[in-house]
């Protein structure tokens, strides 16, 4: 049997307001902020579920680190087809070092015998691109980043992956199993939850592990501050009605001999 672990991050929806809380210095979390699954992780989960649909004998676990609100993202993972959900509870507020998240997940995964570990290539909110490769390094397994497709050998001992390099160039890599794959967006079309999975997810109990007062182990980088970017724009703001702005723009382009 093949076991796949998919790491999920809960992120604020991109339409939610991004406001710095003056009291904490970190981002405000109020009723206006809607949390959901990181989209890159949705692709990673879908890819794992697709593998199960093809191979049959596959278990897909989803794992997430964070406060109690992340249970909704784990439940969503179950609704989208994961077999089991694991919640590592970490109540820490403010900046959480990616190295800490990676250590907690690696510590969980190390004795579970996962054949493949999937992450999204990055998180939409901080775009650190760290957790996947850090988990791989901690577990001592190879990692492929920005995966656009994968084929697992019939005997399940190797996986051939298509990875994206820069500028529209892709490479093919033959990886051993176990390996970690950081999945790029666009690899598939993440499904909507099926009614039967929604019903199942309602009943299903998550495995809960308390991270307690875990630290990254070697004293992580220290949070200094959050700030809004300086308004550096030297740009001209076109004023008036939409019609007037359109006319102004056409005139500008004409003067620059672009039209």
């Amino acid at each position, binding site marked *: 049997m093949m076991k796949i672990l998919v790491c999920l991050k809960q992120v604020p929806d991109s339409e939610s307001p*991004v406001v710095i809380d003056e009291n904490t210095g970190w*981002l405000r979390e109020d009723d206006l902020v809607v949390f959901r699954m990181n989209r890159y992780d949705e692709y990673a989960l879908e890819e794992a579920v697709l593998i199960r649909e093809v191979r049959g004998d596959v278990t897909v676990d989803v794992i997430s680190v964070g406060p109690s609100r992340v249970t909704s993202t784990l439940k969503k993972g179950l609704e989208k087809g994961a077999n089991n959900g694991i919640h590592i509870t970490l109540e820490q507020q403010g*900046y959480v070092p*990616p*190295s800490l998240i990676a250590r907690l997940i690696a510590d969980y995964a190390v004795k579970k015998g996962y054949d493949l570990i999937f992450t999204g290539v990055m998180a939409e*909110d*901080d*775009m*650190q*691109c760290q957790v996947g*490769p*850090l988990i*791989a*390094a*901690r577990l001592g397994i*190879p*990692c*492929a*980043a*920005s995966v656009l497709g994968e084929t697992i050998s019939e005997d399940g001992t190797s996986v051939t992956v298509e*990875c*994206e*390099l*820069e*500028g*529209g*160039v*892709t*490479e*093919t*890599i*033959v*990886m051993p199993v176990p390996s970690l794959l950081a999945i790029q967006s*666009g690899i598939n079309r993440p499904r909507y939850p099926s009614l039967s999975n929604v019903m199942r997810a309602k009943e299903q109990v998550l495995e809960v592990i308390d991270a307690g007062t875990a630290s990254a*182990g070697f004293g992580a*980088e*220290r*949070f*200094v*501050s*959050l*700030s*809004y*970017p300086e308004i550096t*724009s030297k*740009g*001209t*703001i*076109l004023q008036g009605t*939409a*019609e007037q*702005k*359109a*006319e102004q*723009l*056409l005139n500008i382009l*004409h003067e*620059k001999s*672009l*039209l």
Partner: protein
Amino acid sequence: MSVLVIIDTIENRPSAGSFEILTFAEKLAAVAGLPVRVVIAGQEIASLAEDAARYGFDVTGIEHESFRYPNPDFTGRAVLGLMKEYSARYVCLPHTMRGCQTAAFLAASADTHYITAVESFAEKNDEMSFRRALFNGKVYLELSPGEASVFTVQGGSYKAPDSRDTPGTVEVRALSGTPRYRPTGVRESEEESVRLEESDVIISAGRGIGSRENLELIKTIAKVFPNGAVGASRTICDQKWLPYAHQVGITGKTVAPKLYMACGISGAQQHIAGMKGSQTIVAINKDPRAAIFSIADYIIVEDLATFLPILIEKYAESFK
């Protein structure tokens, strides 16, 4: 101690923007009072190593046949030894997928701190503070690393340095060992018929265009210009609304047309790094706080679905 810069190659060519991080490393080394050493991994890189040494830094080339294509795992293991040899305090890599992978391996293996996509740094109260964007540039995060750290540097944040009269030394070593996995080949995107780099005008669509149907408006406007083309943000390509050959940004094309019109593009650093060299930038977005406005020459706060049809109509009235 030293500041190490790690550059990897595809078929012995450095990835775009590799030499930019030399400037970051040089500034960092100046503050920390340390020398810079450049490490280049490739298959046959003697001449590239000479090129890099022109900037005045000492260069160590590491050659292995499996470095024909980037191999972050193998690179990481080789560099780990060099970090010890050169007592590296800071290690700098480009913020590319490969760079991030190598960097994560180094940080986890050497137990150092790790900050990605750094855009700048400053020394405040005897403490170094490194700045990176969150939420596509809506806010900025500053982090302070400890004694040792690995950084990836966001493309477009620094300019490559000028060459020096006195070049650095070059040493090329043949690496032994076998990588744990093997890239077997690379493939270019099939749709090279889209020559974004050669277009004078690029009309680019982002998430803010709302629906696939609105792409027709973008295409109509692109056709108005001689040598105009349609560009896109990553989101649009991920949704399969346009092929990846249209994508502008770090994982797509780097362009510098006479006119770049960003329609409904929020202005993620990944995108901006691929187009900020454009001569004239017009940005249209309904969100007045969109990060794209920070680099735009002309700012239009409007909803595209209503504004673009008006623009097309006004053009037809005045120019046809």
